[in-house]
């Protein structure tokens, strides 16, 4: 049982949790994720570890409510507990002093990119951050990313905040203005693909973090396999980060839709009767440290 000690919304449907998991907190490195199961009837879902504190034994998870499990999780509060949490899984981000690094975070992808951005900054890189969202209220982690970035540009699709338009427009300008040694792009598949196509002709090494469908998260099921440089790689053990120029994004997008009908049915059933799942959520044991 993994008690939730803090829970607050960063934006509509995007919630930050701090969960007690001392062993995971102690070992976790930027880029790694956990597998979470909320209750006995729950599915296993991967969530990137946004931050951690070895001192208080917590990991920070940022959850966007999209499907049933993420929407259910976003109803949890301190005092509730997550039934199962396993990790840290996946390979950590490759962090070195590359020179100038551009981090592109689209939507909740900003939460996945955040810990690695912090690590790039700490490793002495010049950090240029492009933070994209559909609209103003969905822009997350702007102050946190600004604190580690030498330059930060916000874009919104609808122009309600920052620069209007897509992240790729800003990235193109940044690359035209100065030499960029590496790009980390995390967000929706079309965004990652667009960034990959932008940097490919310039030969700028570009890393993406792939959110393929997972079950066990330890390499056993192969459900998360992605086509990278023409061969099968498992996002959970070989990734989740891969060279964007080698990823087959079409196959990724198609495979991520494999369970869409079931996912929609599950979500509709949950929204009609959330109490059926809420009553399965466990209370945290009483001896939760503050």
């Amino acid at each position, binding site marked *: 049982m993994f008690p939730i000690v803090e829970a607050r919304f960063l934006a509509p449907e995007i919630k930050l949790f701090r969960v007690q998991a001392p*062993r*995971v907190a102690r*070992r976790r490195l930027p880029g790694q994720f956990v597998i979470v*199961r909320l209750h006995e*009837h*729950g*599915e*296993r879902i991967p969530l990137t570890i946004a931050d951690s504190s070895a001192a208080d034994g917590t990991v920070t998870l940022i959850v966007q409510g999209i499907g*049933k*499990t993420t929407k259910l999780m976003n109803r949890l509060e301190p005092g509730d507990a997550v*039934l*199962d*949490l*396993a*990790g*840290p*899984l996946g390979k950590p981000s490759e962090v070195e002093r590359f020179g100038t690094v551009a981090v592109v975070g689209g939507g909740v992808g900003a939460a996945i990119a955040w810990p690695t951005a912090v690590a790039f900054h700490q490793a002495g890189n010049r950090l240029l951050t492009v933070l994209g969202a559909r609209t103003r209220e969905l822009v997350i982690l702007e102050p946190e990313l600004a604190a580690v970035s030498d330059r930060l540009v916000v874009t919104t699709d609808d122009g309600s905040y920052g620069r209007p338009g897509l992240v790729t427009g800003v990235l193109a300008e940044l690359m035209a203005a100065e030499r960029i040694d590496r790009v980390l792009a995390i967000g929706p598949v079309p965004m990652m693909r667009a960034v990959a196509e932008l940097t490919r002709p310039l030969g700028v090494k570009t890393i993406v973090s792939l959110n393929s469908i997972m*079950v*066990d998260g*330890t*390499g*056993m*099921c*192969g*459900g998360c*396999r992605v*086509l990278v440089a023409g061969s*099968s790689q*498992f996002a959970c*053990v070989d990734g989740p980060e891969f060279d964007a120029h080698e990823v*087959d994004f*079409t*196959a990724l997008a*198609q*495979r991520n*839709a*494999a*369970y869409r*009908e*079931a*996912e929609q*049915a*599950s979500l509709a*059933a949950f929204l009609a009767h959330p109490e059926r799942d809420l009553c399965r959520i466990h209370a945290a044991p009483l001896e939760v440290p503050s």
Partner: protein
Amino acid sequence: MSTPTPVPGTPVRPKPSERMKMPRQEMPARDAVGRGHDFDEVNLGFDPTLSLAEAARCLECAKPTCMHGCPVHVDVRAFVRLVLAGDFAGAAAKIREDNVLPAVTGRVCPQEDQCEGTCLLAKRTAPLAIGHLERFVADWERATGTVSLPKIPPPSGKRVAIVGSGPAGLAAAGDLVQRGHAVRVFEALHEIGGVLVYGIPEFRLPKEIVREEVENLRKMGVEFETNVVVGRTLTVDELLGEEGFDAVFLAVGAGLPRFLGIPGEHLIGVCSANELLTRVNLMKAYLFPEYDEPVYECRGKAVAVVGGGNTALDAIRTALRLGAREATLIYRRSEAEMPARAEEVHHAQQEGIRFLTLTDPVELLGNDKGSLVAARCRRMELGEPDASGRRRPVPIPGSDFEIPLDLLIIAAGTSANPVVQSTTPGLATDKRGYIAADPETLATSRHGVFAGGDIVTGGATVILAMGAGRKAAAAIDQFLVSASGVGGRSAPAAGAAPSGPADRG
């Protein structure tokens, strides 16, 4: 040993020459049509009458070969004698001395290749149904609440970490607690049992049985911890360091599913048998939406599996139960070469699984949405024997044909999961990436670290993994006892622990 007194109602024991002619009792099974629609167990099990009739066939050989055919050396003759005497609980206890999971192995062992494979009765009629008898007595003790757990000696003061709670880990845990050592089993998933809970379907091995066997180990003092991925959550070095364990047994299983490496494997509707089975068995996707994890829609669909082992059969029989309209097994050799248990092949055929043998898929075809629509297959013929001793399948030129498919499940074996190896400095592996272990002691290149089961041998069977677990337990016991002697630790257990390896045969 004197002839056991027959219980009332048992016929007088026929002479050995007569026993050679007695027919083997058939395992009662559910109707093949009805059972193909749900996940309830297929076999119904022997009752006391069938068991007594079957046990009466045992020749009680002076030099029994059956126990040597068994990877954990169950004393078959002794337990069958107890069955004949009507002491079913005693028979189960006798098995339990060598096998901590009798209700499991009675269901899933390939007996025809092991204990029953050496039975002399096979020369005249059919081998003694040892597996069915084992299952019967194990179920009897569970049903009657007469499970007698082995005695646990005083604590040795030594602690052993077992990594993985599958058959190898559970067997090792059972033996090590019986020698007084404190045992903690770490499991990466949220449930204990490894392949017994994620791999083998409910209709062949009800999960309730696994839970009860795990509960028995708990009562014997074994501790379990879930959600610990050794190599990630904790390293082997930490287990031997700050976590304070004196020895580690790595029994993490084989891991990564292999794919075929043919075009189209990334289409929607292509998955590994591990994925389908994990969704259905561990995550209970057959109860979706009551349980959250979904599984590929099989209702009314054409489904096939590629492979000829138990996993392939488990997967395709699962798809049938999920409502597949057509369920086909595609295997590149002929039925005679299939590595699956004979009973599973028989059951699958009864249930209407179509066997497309001497056939190999060469390309998977999809539509514009990226979904599988067909497999292009090639006919094969058998050539010269290969390294495995089986005749090598050779493609027949110009024999390609297509079969329409909505779902293709790939059961082409597994390769080594690298997580433990890559995070344990100095742990030697073989050229395929499996952990290198001494064949006798299962000791690895790291002091105090042992390894066994699929992570050493590659994918095998439940009972072979259990055999490895027992072997490792014996070696670990010896390692701990000699270590405490050298270290001068006051070890009450050194005396209490029986001299492990020797008395196990």
